[in-house]
């Protein structure tokens, strides 16, 4: 990888403009990388961009000083114009005044998208899963293709060659854009001008799409930037925060305007956070508190953590239904009554589209302007009755929270001024399969309501489902996940298979209590000496006493039977391995424990209660 250089082509400015066309939304769902990636590292992504795409489409050679403008702002420059000093984001009039020889062209997004299509097809010919971010930018998940073509760098060079080959062919049969009277000089009639554009494609490879976009912007002709897996943080650390405003870095969400990243960059710079490394060093809760979701995204990005968007599929805002209360409603029951009518309206509207709502936000505005919002997810459609019930629980839970927080000043009398139901996730209505004999249906609804109510009281992570999976210790043999629905298909999928041998896994009785994290313990021999385990997995002496816990809560008991030690070595082949030895003991009081010796200390991993 070549050394990181300052961001070129105007990306280092805080003007919020990228190098290629702005304003064209990419395909939905690209921002998360390929789906199904869970919370693990973001997928390896390759991004290829042609920074001068609009100029290429216009059929001008790189040596001609050309600027493409949109809304009287420069959006794309030819290399010759950049060499003169023009910048992306400049006003058209300023550029014209300073460089009178500059040829100004109006941007033609339709032609740019049309001409980009054969380029995408050229890449798709040898790599699947190619996605267009915007005309002039293309992304693909590159884990498989990289292995096939012999590494990220080899793949990057191959993609660059393919793109440049396709670009050369595009030039020979241009989209023949019509002259625009608004531009000072229309596009020329010459169609074979796209020569000399060798090296116009920049390729970057990194974990996740945003970092790959950035890497592509930093790449040079013929020298792709490849960020090694897991090194995003090191790659991003020296870069200025202004790169966050680069277009194409983040998909525009439904609630975000284009100005927001620029505003965030501006604020960060004014607060003295100048590089992404400095941003990454800040504590995440503080970043969320000060900068909101946008800041949290930037923080996760700077740290190299996965940055999946909160809302995978933007929905039109006008699907939300709302009702105002005048005078404000005091009783939760009255609000629930209206919620039912609203839910029926929403259902009818979605039903006409053949959709059902699977995640719904209930938003309440109080007469004092507070906004309270919670999202509800359900397997299958959310019925009107269920919405009414949830609205009531939600209001009651908030009223109780206010009472607990506010104490004597009785702030719970904040009436409801407005109630909105916002569908956050919809899916095609394919019905809900009922059991053949119908016995489970009523029960499942009852259980779902009860657990949804508990989730409303304590938060969605407070109700857990467990599923067994493969693992060496008892804590690792269970995967816990927030409860999502009563359908049997909704139990969490095990992360590791039960099937492969798990050396070190204990046979026999399983403990009823598994401590996460383990409790502190001390094990001593008859003489009161602390026990240790040698490198060959042998105890220094038979255990005689066990002390569980420390400080005042410690309990000491005599050991009457013991077995082990059994050494366990995990993942010694990579850096994250751990070594420990485990010991089962029974004590005089009838207790039985699973102990572990790790890092020179004894721990109680589990209690056989």
């Amino acid at each position, binding site marked *: 990888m070549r050394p990181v250089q300052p961001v070129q082509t105007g990306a280092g400015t805080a003007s919020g403009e990228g190098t290629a066309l702005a304003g064209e939304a990419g395909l939905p769902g690209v921002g998360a990388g390929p789906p199904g990636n869970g919370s693990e590292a973001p997928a390896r992504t390759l991004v290829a961009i042609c920074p001068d795409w609009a100029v290429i489409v216009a059929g001008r050679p790189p040596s001609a000083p050309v600027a493409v403008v949109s809304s009287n702002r420069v959006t794309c420059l030819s290399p010759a114009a950049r060499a003169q000093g023009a910048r992306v984001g400049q006003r058209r009039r300023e550029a014209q005044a300073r460089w009178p020889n500059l040829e100004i062209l109006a941007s033609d997004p339709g032609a740019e998208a049309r001409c980009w299509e054969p380029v995408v097809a050229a890449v798709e010919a040898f790599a699947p899963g190619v996605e267009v971010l915007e005309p002039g930018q293309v992304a693909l998940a590159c884990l498989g293709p990289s292995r096939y073509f012999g590494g990220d760098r080899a793949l990057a060079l191959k993609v660059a060659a393919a793109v440049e080959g396709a670009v050369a062919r595009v030039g020979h049969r241009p989209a023949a854009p019509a002259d625009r009277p608004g531009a000072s000089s229309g596009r020329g009639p010459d169609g074979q001008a796209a020569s000399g554009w060798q090296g116009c494609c920049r390729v970057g490879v990194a974990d996740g799409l945003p970092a790959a976009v950035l890497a592509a912007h930093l790449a040079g002709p013929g020298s792709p930037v490849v960020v090694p897996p897991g090194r995003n943080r090191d790659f991003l650390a020296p870069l200025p925060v202004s790169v966050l405003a680069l277009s194409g870095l983040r998909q525009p969400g439904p609630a975000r305007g284009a100005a927001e990243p620029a505003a965030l960059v501006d604020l960060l710079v004014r607060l003295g956070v100048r590089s992404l490394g400095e941003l990454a060093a800040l504590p995440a809760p503080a970043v969320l508190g000060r900068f909101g979701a946008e800041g949290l995204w930037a923080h996760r990005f700077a740290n190299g953590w996965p940055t999946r968007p909160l809302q995978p599929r933007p929905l039109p805002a006008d699907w939300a239904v709302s009702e105002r209360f005048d005078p404000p409603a005091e009783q939760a029951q009255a609000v629930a009554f209206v919620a039912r009518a609203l839910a029926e309206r929403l259902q009818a509207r979605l039903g006409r589209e053949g959709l059902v709502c699977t995640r719904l936000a209930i938003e309440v505005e109080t007469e004092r302007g507070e906004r309270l919002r919670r999202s509800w997810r359900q397997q299958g459609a959310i019925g009107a009755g269920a919405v009414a019930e949830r609205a009531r629980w939600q209001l009651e839970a908030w009223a109780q929270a206010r009472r607990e927080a506010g104490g004597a000043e009785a702030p719970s009398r904040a009436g409801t001024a407005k109630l909105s139901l916002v569908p956050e996730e919809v899916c095609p209505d394919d019905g809900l399969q009922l059991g053949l004999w119908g016995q489970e249906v009523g029960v499942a609804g009852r259980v779902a309501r009860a657990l949804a109510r508990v989730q409303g009281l304590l938060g969605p992570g407070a109700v857990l489902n467990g599923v067994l999976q493969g693992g060496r210790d008892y804590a690792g043999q269970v995967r816990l996940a927030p409860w999502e629905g009563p359908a049997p298909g909704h139990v969490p999928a095990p992360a590791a298979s039960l099937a492969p041998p798990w*050396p070190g896994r204990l046979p026999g*009785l399983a403990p009823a209590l598994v401590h996460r994290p383990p409790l502190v313990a001390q094990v001593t021999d008859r003489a009161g000496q602390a026990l240790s385990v040698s490198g060959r997995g042998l105890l220094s002496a038979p255990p005689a006493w066990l002390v569980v816990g420390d400080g005042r809560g410690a309990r000491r008991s005599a050991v009457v039977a013991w077995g082990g030690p059994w050494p366990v070595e995990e993942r010694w082949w990579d850096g994250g391995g751990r*070594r420990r030895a485990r010991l089962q003991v029974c004590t005089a009081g009838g207790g039985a424990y699973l102990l572990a010796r790790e890092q020179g200390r004894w721990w109680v991993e589990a209690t056989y209660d």
Partner: protein
Amino acid sequence: MAYEAGAVVERAAGAVLARDRALPLAAALAPLFPTGGLQRGATVSVGAGPGGAPGATSLALALLSAPSAGGSWCAVVGVPELGFVAADQLGADLGHLVLVPTAGQKWPVVVGALLEGLDLVVLRLAAEPRPAAARRLAARAREQGAVLVVMGAAWPGVDVRLQVVATRWRGLQCGHGYLWGREMEVVASGRGAASRERRVQLSLGAGDLGTGGLGTGGLGTGGLLPMAAPPQPPVPRPLAAGGPTGLAS
């Protein structure tokens, strides 16, 4: 006349007998309850007896194993360190078991909501509850037909009180062996039909012993898991001589 007889028969068929209003129970646990089943609406406390033997969590998991395997929904509240592997060994269906690790100060509301929808709720408390809250929850269980199992603290006015008075471990010797089973002696008392004291020997084993995880004792033959021939397990062996040394110790 025939019409009246038909009406009587119809009424009788519609009546629900007490023994039908019960959750299924593992056969080994049935002698602990006067009707031989886990009565819906009952409050059961599980704890250590005067001897102070451990085993309350295992006993509570044994109580919910048969209902959950039969399709009833069960919840465990206030046990963040619950061992799901042990629940699975005792025969519980993890697909019908949810865990609310900590309920904090809101536990009466949470347990009340769970009793409305689920069939069995196991609650572990750190401190004795206020009598009013306990009464309210017991009444909620009664009217909803759910079973409330309480452990960790004394609960006023329970229907059945289960106490573990002795426990013995099987398989672990001085320096060798591993735990593959246990025996518990459980004493049941309570009020009403349950007031007569009952004493049951339970044996809990790992599921791979072929005993179904849960057995009963005291049938003259000993009934406990055989001591003579414990299965030969794949006990992890100490590191081979050529292996890496220097275990963190």
